[in-house]
């Protein structure tokens, strides 16, 4: 059984003129690291919300087809059913933060799931340490900087120990080092079995971690596959995907008649491929 299955799923927000998701058919398995990208407004956030039943149960509208998360139909089971399965990091962290301080915020999710108090305390301490939140421990989430809020939102979601982390642009407010650290943590948890669905515009940051990239445009999935294959496509530039710089250089060299053996995703990979080409 797939962890997530979109079975010909379409969705239109109440009052909207056009479909936000159009006939989405795909499955995501345990252990995958899927990056979703595509132009602003193409439906990425709606896709994320459909995984944990916020669409169509909280955000209402016209629905066709079904989504099954962990085997359960998101139209037929309560939103709470999906909380421990699919943990969502909201695009706007402030909309996710509901309590009075950082400790409570991290504890909030597991408390609602009925996790034992000792275990909750352990998770809170672990995440405060992991995400470098010690100094913010007693701060009110609305009295923090944008990046601080985003780190707290990520911690609060990880505290649920979800089977799949659904992270909607989780690094958009982070400084470059924090972004790297958070993405390393996510990649590490993925290796230990947590599936990841992550929305991102700047693929420089995440292409190397992904096992699969899904490209969306105007509510549809327009490409889905191996990161190197997808990012080599001209379609990426056409629709405004933030192709990694190393991959861009590869493409520009190719138009000038120089074809490296493989498609690089990082600067170091690019350098290695250039070196390899000179020693051939």
């Amino acid at each position, binding site marked *: 059984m797939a962890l997530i299955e979109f079975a010909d799923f379409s969705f239109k927000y109440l009052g909207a003129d056009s479909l936000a998701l159009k006939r989405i058919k795909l499955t995501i398995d345990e252990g995958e690291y899927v990056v979703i990208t595509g132009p602003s*407004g193409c439906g990425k956030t709606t896709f994320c919300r459909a995984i944990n039943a916020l669409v169509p149960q909280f955000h209402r509208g016209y629905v066709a087809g079904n989504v099954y998360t962990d085997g359960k139909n998101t139209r037929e089971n309560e939103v709470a059913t999906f909380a421990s399965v699919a943990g969502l990091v909201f695009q706007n962290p402030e909309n996710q933060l509901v309590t009075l301080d950082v400790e409570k915020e991290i504890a909030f999710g597991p408390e609602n799931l009925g996790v034992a108090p000792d275990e909750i305390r352990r998770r809170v301490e672990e995440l405060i340490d992991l995400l470098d939140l010690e100094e913010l421990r007693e701060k009110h989430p609305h009295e923090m900087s*944008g*990046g601080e809020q985003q780190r707290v939102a990520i911690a609060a979601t990880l505290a649920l120990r979800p089977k799949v982390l659904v992270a909607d*642009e989780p690094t958009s*407010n982070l400084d470059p080092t924090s*972004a790297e650290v958070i993405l390393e943590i996510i990649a590490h948890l993925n290796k230990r079995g947590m599936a990841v669905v992550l929305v991102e515009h700047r693929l420089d940051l995440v292409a190397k971690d992904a096992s699969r990239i899904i490209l969306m445009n105007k509510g549809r999935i327009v490409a889905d596959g191996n990161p190197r294959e997808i990012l080599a496509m001209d379609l990426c530039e056409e629709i405004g995907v*933030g192709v990694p710089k190393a991959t861009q250089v590869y493409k520009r060299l190719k138009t000038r008649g*120089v074809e490296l053996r493989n498609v690089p995703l*990082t*600067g170091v990979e690019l350098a290695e491929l250039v070196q390899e080409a000179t020693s051939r």
Partner: protein
Amino acid sequence: MIILEDVHYSYDGVYTALRGISLQVDDGERLAVIGANGAGKTTMIKHMNGLLRPQNGRVILDGQDTKFMSVAEIARKVGLVFQNPDHQLFLDSVKEEVEFGLRNLGFTESEAEQRCQGTLASLGLGGFAERSPFTLSGGERKRVALASVLSTEPRFLALDEPTIGQDAHQKNRLAQMLAEMNKRGRTVVVVTHDIEFVIENFPRTVAMAEGQIIADGSTSMVLSNDEVIERCALAPPQMTLAARALRNVFPEVGQRLTLLSELEETIMGILGGA
């Protein structure tokens, strides 16, 4: 000209978010402010349009101490786009949201309408005029917030993380708009974590850490300062990593490669022009 003179600010009287910021922004400049999360960038930029007032020190706008100016007076000269669009958008339609600022500044009905339409189109929001801002995607909301300020084309533009949530095309459009306004004499100050956006668009960079300015100068100089890299939590861009890895093997590769086109030419050179 905006001058910040030894500005101090604390939200709670205990922890000090700004600890003596001194900065001069001249007319017609393009300036980026960088720094780690919590460094005080947002707190600083909010002082530029009077949203926050210095608890110590002064903010001087065109020679006038802003202590004696109302927010409305300051807003006529300095337009601020918030980091989080939720803090900025409060009206029922995109059109109202954008025209609100224009009307406040005394534009006539038809001027306001024209400017609103033009700006929305430039930001990829044509056809969004009647939509409620609450039904927009994250990136779209950020662009409406940008439109509400850019449409008025104030003398000073202060933009907090303008590229958040934007795809590559939208980012290019925004960069182009800012460049055009700058050519017409507008001053542009951005706060951003997007170092490539800084390198490509801003000749001057101010680096902040723990409520202070630790470097201020040409972007290439500031970004190659080791203390800045460390304390502003910068990670080397992929282009720099590529250049470094190449330099280990091909000593002819230059020290200061930053632009994609430079790296491309260097590689063509290494591979014998093919």
